[in-house]
């Protein structure tokens, strides 16, 4: 089974529904491409796009564009042609982009800028018009579950980016394991604010096609534009990253309600959500179901979910539920997880390295091959623990763990305490080389506008809530933390700047 099997079901079963685009087709001046596509139009477009890919013997489709109808057309055209989609970040610097593109010399590159590549480049406009040409001579797709559907670069917060190999069977398993065909209401619509080169952008698109939910893209996030879009587009579901929710709660200030009556579900993930932000958001969106989704590029996105009931219990003050608000919830039905220490699998509630397995877990990188062990387990390189009821707590990347005088310290624990201080807007904790302790704890802190706190005050704050060995030896103040577009903190850069000052 491949992704087109599922797209064809959507085209057959929900022929009148809009797959992607606004509530109403805008006036099209100057022969602009349609802003909306139905499922049958998406499938026909994929066939036409595949015909172009065949004619130019493309080995891959590199998508360097922004979110929009061209993106699902690229994903499904590539599937039809039996080649991978490679979505890349168009905001990368010239050298980084050139380095990534050098791995894809025989790709067709869809881009509205002039990317540093010798491969053939076409604009989004040209791509849309190629997909609009009838291509009845293009043969049907080969149903090959082993074919590679997408190569997605990991965010590379701790090491250089690697291309995760996602085969059709991985993505299909994810969809069949997590959503039901045609389950969305006819008027449901999802507002997507994650970029197309992120696994959540790919998985989300496919989920929505399979459940029959219209996708609306927000090109550039600002709190006001997001709120306006939810209202005018009658959005029922939204997907955001934690930094966006943080900006939204700041923007709404003392408001008592966000005023988005159609919104029923708000899913977040991609990075850690600071608890104070989440608690404020739960007040601002009282009738909305909050869902925390945890997953990795290598697992085709979501593998664990903290659902609406867990969020509500926490808001009502249930102490266990409040603790679990810091977890990523429970595993999807098809996914297993194991926490391992140096001696193997650990009992419940013991922190260690998180391993996962299941049919949606790829664990394969281009040029490196499969990284699964003999029993199919994938080392996520995240550290955490699973409580007695199966709630998974993620402390952070194993590579980020600070080892101070032999003690393993998760930066997240200290960051959470710093974020509880009313003057702190953002904080990142890293380990810096230290002659006495091996590593010492350093924190980069962003203060709220108009608020002040000095390093000694913050050190005292942490010491009184944790203990001396977890108190940062160094605290520096900065205007902002370097982040990926989805809100993951770039610790490499923070570490480099801190080391250069010591």
């Amino acid at each position: 089974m491949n992704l087109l099997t599922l797209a064809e079901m959507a085209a057959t079963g929900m022929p009148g529904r809009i797959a992607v685009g606004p509530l109403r087709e805008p006036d099209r001046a100057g022969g602009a491409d349609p802003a909306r596509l139905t499922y049958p139009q998406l499938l026909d477009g994929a066939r036409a796009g595949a015909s172009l890919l065949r004619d130019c013997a493309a080995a891959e489709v590199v998508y360097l564009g922004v979110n929009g109808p061209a993106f699902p057309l690229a994903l499904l055209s590539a599937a039809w042609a039996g080649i991978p989609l490679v979505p890349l970040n168009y905001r990368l610097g010239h050298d980084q982009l050139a380095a990534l593109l050098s791995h894809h010399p025989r790709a067709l590159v869809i881009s509205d800028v002039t990317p540093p590549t010798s491969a053939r480049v076409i604009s989004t406009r040209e791509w849309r018009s190629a997909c609009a040409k009838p291509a009845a001579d293009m043969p049907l797709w080969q149903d090959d579950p082993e074919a590679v559907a997408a190569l997605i670069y990991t965010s590379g917060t701790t090491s250089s980016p690697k291309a995760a190999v996602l085969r059709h069977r991985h993505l299909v398993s994810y969809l069949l394991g997590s959503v039901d065909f045609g389950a969305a209401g006819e008027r449901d619509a999802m507002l997507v604010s994650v970029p197309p080169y992120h696994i959540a952008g790919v998985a989300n698109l496919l989920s929505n096609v399979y459940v029959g939910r219209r996708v609306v893209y927000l090109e550039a996030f600002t709190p006001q534009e997001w709120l306006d879009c939810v209202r005018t587009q009658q959005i029922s579901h939204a997907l955001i990253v934690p930094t966006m929710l943080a900006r939204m709660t700041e923007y709404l200030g003392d408001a008592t309600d966000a005023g988005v009556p159609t919104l029923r579900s708000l899913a977040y993930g991609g990075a850690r959500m600071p608890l104070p932000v989440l608690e404020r958001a739960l007040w601002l969106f009282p009738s909305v179901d909050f869902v925390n989704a945890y997953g990795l590029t290598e697992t085709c996105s979501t593998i664990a979910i903290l659902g609406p009931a867990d969020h509500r219990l926490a808001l009502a003050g249930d102490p266990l539920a409040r603790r679990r608000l810091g977890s990523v919830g429970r595993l999807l039905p098809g996914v297993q997880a194991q926490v391992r220490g140096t001696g193997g699998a650990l009992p419940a509630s013991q922190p260690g390295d998180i391993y996962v397995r299941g049919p949606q877990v790829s664990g394969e990188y281009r040029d490196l091959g499969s990284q699964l062990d003999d029993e199919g387990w994938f080392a996520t390189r995240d550290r955490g623990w699973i409580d007695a009821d199966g709630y998974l707590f993620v402390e952070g990347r194993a590579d980020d763990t600070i080892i101070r005088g032999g003690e393993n310290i998760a930066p997240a624990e200290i960051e959470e305490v710093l974020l509880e201080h009313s003057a702190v807007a953002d904080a990142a904790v890293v380990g810096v080389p230290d002659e006495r302790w091996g590593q010492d704890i350093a924190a980069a802190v962003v203060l709220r506008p108009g608020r002040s706190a000095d390093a000694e005050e913050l050190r005292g704050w942490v010491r009184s809530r944790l203990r001396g060995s977890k108190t940062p030896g160094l605290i520096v103040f900065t205007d902002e933390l370097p982040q990926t577009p989805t809100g993951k903190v770039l610790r490499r850069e923070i570490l480099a700047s801190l080391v250069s000052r010591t």
Partner: protein
Amino acid sequence: MTDITVGTRLRSSVCDTEVITVRAPDVPVELSCGGYPMTAGSSRAGSSRSGADGGTLLGKRYVDEQTGLEVLCTKPGAGRLAADGRALTIKAPKALPASD
């Protein structure tokens, strides 16, 4: 008897029904639609046996509790699905919230 493994596509020989296997059965089983064995080919044998109609629905998952066989209906039709004569039942929808 057709070998049914995950991903096997089967067609009805009496109606438009097509399915894909999502979970293989624990023991070999004969999957029928409208009273006639489903096949990997596309030959039509005629109309359903009486009592073997009732139809299949697009996108529904059908299961045989006894062997664990689970199929996804990718094209609907008029015949009813059965495993060794036992009518398959529609699997209850998932209770998961929308996560992405």
